[in-house]
């Protein structure tokens, strides 16, 4: 029996809620960013929710993840406080990072979330380190590096994969292949055109899954986590997925076929797919899911209002937390 077949209604409902929460968080940001009130630049995760949630539902607080510039989904899936996240994105003083990091640097160490990362390829070496800690402590915990198809061409990522194999640490490399790095297609930038095979070349156990299918991601992750917890070493998972928006907010997406996103919204929407599956299997009733939708929308409403009302940092904050002691 696959892992996902063992998920009860409560767990399924939670997974759905997590995906829905990410989706609405991002959809709302898409609207709010257009107003100009949100500083900096922001990369939305909408469309990729089943990856973050499928992966993180296999993890606990003592497992680690490292994330990317497109990190909101990973943060939420790993349990970061969404109110704190929204405030951080608005640059508020009581944001998760006190307004110092912003969208691309959200972290919550206590939740095992070792940070979004604005440097493509910055995270995977860190994940190997966290995996070293897991292995040394012997508690059976694991460490996950999220990365995009584009990041998979960065030298640091290759080094991390090789080192994880050499040290046989419980690290799992999750490549979210959404087809693009910025405005360049994955088919162009990945010479071999096959991330999974390339990862296998490094000696990793690797598989490729449909990233819009929560169950598929969850099960693949289950296999990787089980192997890692048992001392079987690192793995890679490539999740084929799409992003519903541009690379960053404001991207005119001229590199995409006119109907690409619309088509993907039809066929690759993890929420729709999840609902259909529940309908078919009967594990969850429509009404339960609708109730989650309503609750999530209300929550987003509230955290956006809170974030807008929250005060910005004060000048004195500029100087704190550079060092613990100096």
């Amino acid at each position: 029996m696959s892992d996902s077949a063992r998920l009860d209604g409560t767990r399924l409902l939670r997974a759905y809620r997590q995906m829905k929460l990410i989706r609405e968080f991002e959809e709302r940001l898409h609207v709010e960013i257009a107003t100009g009130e949100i500083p900096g630049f922001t990369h939305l995760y909408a469309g990729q929710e089943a990856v973050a949630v499928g992966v993180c539902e296999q993890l606990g607080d003592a497992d680690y993840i490292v994330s990317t510039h497109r990190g909101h989904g990973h943060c939420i899936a790993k349990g970061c406080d969404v109110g704190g996240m929204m405030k951080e994105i608005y640059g508020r003083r009581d944001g998760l990072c006190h307004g110092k990091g912003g969208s691309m640097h959200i972290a919550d160490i206590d939740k095992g979330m070792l940070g979004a990362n604005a440097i493509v390829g910055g995270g995977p070496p860190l994940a190997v380190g966290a995996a070293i800690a897991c292995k040394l402590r012997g508690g059976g915990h694991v460490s996950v590096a999220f990365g995009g198809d584009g990041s998979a061409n960065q030298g640091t990522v290759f080094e991390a994969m090789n080192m994880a194999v050499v040290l046989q640490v419980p690290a799992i490399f999750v490549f979210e292949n959404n087809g693009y790095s910025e405005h360049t297609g994955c088919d162009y930038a990945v010479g071999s055109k096959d991330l999974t095979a390339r990862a296998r070349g490094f000696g990793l156990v690797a598989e490729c899954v449909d990233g819009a299918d929560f169950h598929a991601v969850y099960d693949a992750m289950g296999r990787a986590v089980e192997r890692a917890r048992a001392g079987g070493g690192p793995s890679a998972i490539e999740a084929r997925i799409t992003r519903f928006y541009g690379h960053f907010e404001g991207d005119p997406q001229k590199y995409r076929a006119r109907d690409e996103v619309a088509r993907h919204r039809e066929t690759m929407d993890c929420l729709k797919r999840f609902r259909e599956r529940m309908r078919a299997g009967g594990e969850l009733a429509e009404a339960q899911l609708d109730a989650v939708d309503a609750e999530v929308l209300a929550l987003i409403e509230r955290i956006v209002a809170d974030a807008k009302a929250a005060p910005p940092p004060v000048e004195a904050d500029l100087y704190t937390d550079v060092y613990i002691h100096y």
Partner: protein
Amino acid sequence: MPQMTMRDALNQALHQEMERDERVIVLGEDVSGGAGGTSGEREASGGIFGVTKGLLPRFGAGRVIDTPISESAIVGAAGGAALAGLRPVAELMFADFVGVCMDQIYNQIAKFRYMFGGKSRCPVVIRMAMGAGMNMGPQHSQSIYALMTAVPGLKVVVPSNAYDAKGLLIEAIRDDDPVVFLEHKALYPRKGEVPEKPYTVPFGEAALVREGEHVTVVAIARMVPFAERAIDALAKEGITCDLIDPRTTSPLDFDTIVESVEGTGRLVVVDESPPRCSLAADIAATVAERAFGRLKAPIAQVTPPHTPVPFAPALERAYVPGPPRIEAAIRHVLKVS
């Protein structure tokens, strides 16, 4: 003369030099964009800041090369192509990304000629967008001119306006040594008069942006327009300043600065990077030595604090030395004797 943004001036320089010399190539992430996309449209990007727009349709994919996210390979390829006789212009997007390709810059490209006993030339230009002011956070906002200036073998360019940007970029491409070309991203939209024809601005010659008698102010890149504002405000009170824009930090035109300080006796250096081992310190130390005895007040360094660049607008504004801090520093050096 046409008014043009710094972005367009840089773009024009690239067009003109690629036209003039077929050895000039451009490479980097999304310098054109659209490769491998589903729309079939190339030039979906033209550079994330739009500086390389129009090059692909004009010069083709052999000379305008989109790359994977592999900065070491990008910069290294530029270096290797230069050793092999081309004149590559590599784009690093954000200057903060030097971290993932620093070796190729500081151990390879910068040192070839020396290590090889003068037998090689490596005419590479590495363009990068630097600077704070757009709330891009700690890993996308740094000003790295001190890091680059410290490296023997590199030349370092820091234009503050559209005219200089075009002339300096053409000079950089024609220069036979490796050049790090730092474009402040907040200056891309800054407009100025720019001649249509190609021209060069020489390295190592500072521009005297304002003339005055009481204080010498040296400012870099975006700090130049900020210093202009501070100085113009003070001029109304009869306080006048020399404003010097070095334009290149390696080589740096110390002579012009020292000469000015010998007249004014007072110096304010405005630098957008943190204070330790900074360009501000570099200039201050050299001037303090060369103009010793002529200084009527300690040199003031106006820099951000020793912290990363914060994200929140309120913090970033406090971080970047703006006109009020520059004005205060000028008043301060005038008060001390």
